[in-house]
């Protein structure tokens, strides 16, 4: 083994107590970072997953109508005018098949579906319930909003004349697969459907209002002929939805909203959560760095006689420096291994405690190999950086002084 490695190990072994203390400090610091990272990542992935389980990543809608200015301002002049917002017509998208195909062809778009939706009523036995009539082509739609996990009764299928309804509506109207249900639209058109499936969308409001019916049936009920009201898309990477939005808009001339637009509050909440967890991680890292530095500074002072002797024996300053840098790296590296193990264990432990009534974890913790590598790398680097000041100090010691006073 080389001189630097041998001496570094020997010094650390001599100062067992200090080495143990500093290792414990690094381990705890790394464990906190790993734990917070894993739990926050798990929480966020879970929240996003839940939120997007009934939403598209990208939604294209008709352009909003705007009033045109009747008087154009003269060049260099101004006109005082009050331009009112106009009431929006029930707008639809024609030529949608072409536009759907065009956006589907964009790189980064996984799938797309056309939706024809509008307000309506569900009636049975004289009870009227206000519902959303959502016409879909089932195969396309299911690729964007996964339905199989939501099935409570019946089968996922939409042959002509069937409807899939939310569990609350089923309860309120006493419906089960096979029951008959009459749907009316605001235009007065009505049709009777057979309930094919009862679904749990995860939200009471959706469970009360959502009715999924074949696209054709919805179009004729709502009086749309061949048009649709929205185009839904799923992106390969959901965080690219915002970037895809502009391209889809330019391609189709339609208005586009990403899931981030539709869930602005959630996005803000997730961002501030990420920011605070980042702050915690940064501060913990600083605390760990200061801990390593202070223990090594003390060790340099304690060992100055030995350092002076080594210098007198002919150890170059660079080698003395390397001894302490290596100690920093070792402490950071070993501490990060212990710390990731401890942090991962704590996160897994939490996911065992925080469980839903049915016994499944409230949220999955996300512990990736990447987290291990990054933490180990950062901790080792922090170890080396923290050792800089002590190492330089050790290398600069005047051997005569060090031997005399050490």
């Amino acid at each position, binding site marked *: 083994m080389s001189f630097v490695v041998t001496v570094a190990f020997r010094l650390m072994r001599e100062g067992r107590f200090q080495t143990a203390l500093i290792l414990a400090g690094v381990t705890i610091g790394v464990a906190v970072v790993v734990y917070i990272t894993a739990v926050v990542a798990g929480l966020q992935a879970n929240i996003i997953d839940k939120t997007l389980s009934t939403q598209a990543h990208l939604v294209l809608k008709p352009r909003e109508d705007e009033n045109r200015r009747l008087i154009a301002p003269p060049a260099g002049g101004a006109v005082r005018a009050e331009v009112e917002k106009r009431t929006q017509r029930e707008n639809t998208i024609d030529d949608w098949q072409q536009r759907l195909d065009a956006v589907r062809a964009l790189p980064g778009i996984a799938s797309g579906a056309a939706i024809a939706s509008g307000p309506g009523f569900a009636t049975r036995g004289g009870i009227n319930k206000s519902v959303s009539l959502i016409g879909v082509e089932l195969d396309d739609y299911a690729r964007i909003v996964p339905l199989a996990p939501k099935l409570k009764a019946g089968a996922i299928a939409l042959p002509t004349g069937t409807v899939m309804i939310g569990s609350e509506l089923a309860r309120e109207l006493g419906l089960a697969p096979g029951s008959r249900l009459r749907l009316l639209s605001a235009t007065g058109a009505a049709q009777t459907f057979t309930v094919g499936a009862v679904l749990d969308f995860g939200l009471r409001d959706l469970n009360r209002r959502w009715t999924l019916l074949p696209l054709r049936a919805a179009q004729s009920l709502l009086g749309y002929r061949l048009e649709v009201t929205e185009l839904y898309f799923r992106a390969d990477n959901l965080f690219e939805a915002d970037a895809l939005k502009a391209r889809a808009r330019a391609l189709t001339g339609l208005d586009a909203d990403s899931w981030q637009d539709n869930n602005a509050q959630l996005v803000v909440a997730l961002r501030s959560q990420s920011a605070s967890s980042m702050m915690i991680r940064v501060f913990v890292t600083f605390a760990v760095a200061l801990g390593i530095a202070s223990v090594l500074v003390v060790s340099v002072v304690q060992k100055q006689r030995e350092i002076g*002797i080594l210098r007198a024996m002919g150890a170059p*300053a660079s*080698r003395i420096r390397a001894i302490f840098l290596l100690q920093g790296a070792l402490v950071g590296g070993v501490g990060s291994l212990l710390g990731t193990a401890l942090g991962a264990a704590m996160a897994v432990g939490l996911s065992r405690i925080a469980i839903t009534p049915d016994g499944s974890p409230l949220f999955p913790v996300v512990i990736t190999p990447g987290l291990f590598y990054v933490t180990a790398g950062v901790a080792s680097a922090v170890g080396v950086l923290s050792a800089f000041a002590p190492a330089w100090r050790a290398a600069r010691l005047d051997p005569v002084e060090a031997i005399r006073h050490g």
Partner: protein
Amino acid sequence: MAEVIRLEGVRKGYGGGEAPWVEVLHGVDLVLHEGEFVSLAGPSGSGKSTLLNIMGLLEPPNDGALTIAGERAEALDDDARTRLRNRYLGFVFQFHHLLPAFSALENVLMPVFAGTGRLPAGAREHALALLERVGLAEHAGKRPVQLSGGQQQRVAIVRALANRPRLVLADEPTGNLDTQTAAEVFALMHDINREQGVTFLVVTHDERLAQDCPRRVNLVDGRIAPSPALVG
């Protein structure tokens, strides 16, 4: 005989800034030759240790010329001084200054290890042979605290020889030992000097030990004066 080290007009002082400037060495001229065994005497505080530190390249002189093995050394940078020190010089201090965390053998290997950064083939055998020569072969694995004062100092002497230096600088190597042990350690250095031709410069206050030295120099008033014994 070839020169091992040459000092010309070497000056050294301390202080400056707040403290007043005090010059300790006022122009030391000294030449040591290959195979010599020289004792250095002088009153306490006369600058003997300071002189040895300068000769040993542990601190630079303020003025004057220092030539080691034909190389001008007074203005070398830290790395070059360290390299020259490691290759040509060995130190023995008043206190053994062995590293407590390492065994006797490891301490002996330290100059080779520290200088090259690793252990070259044969270094171990050489170190063991040296320990054997001073009768410490069976103590090679012991830590310094497990050795007696005389044994510690013998390990320190062996350590000074480990890198096959041309000059060993010993600063009161027997100052901490009882008379009997001091005489033995001194005799050992004489023997090694004769056997291996290594030059020794030994600081000692002990007149009886100094008497056995073929050449004696005194440090008086910051300059080298030939020993009266030699003049007379």
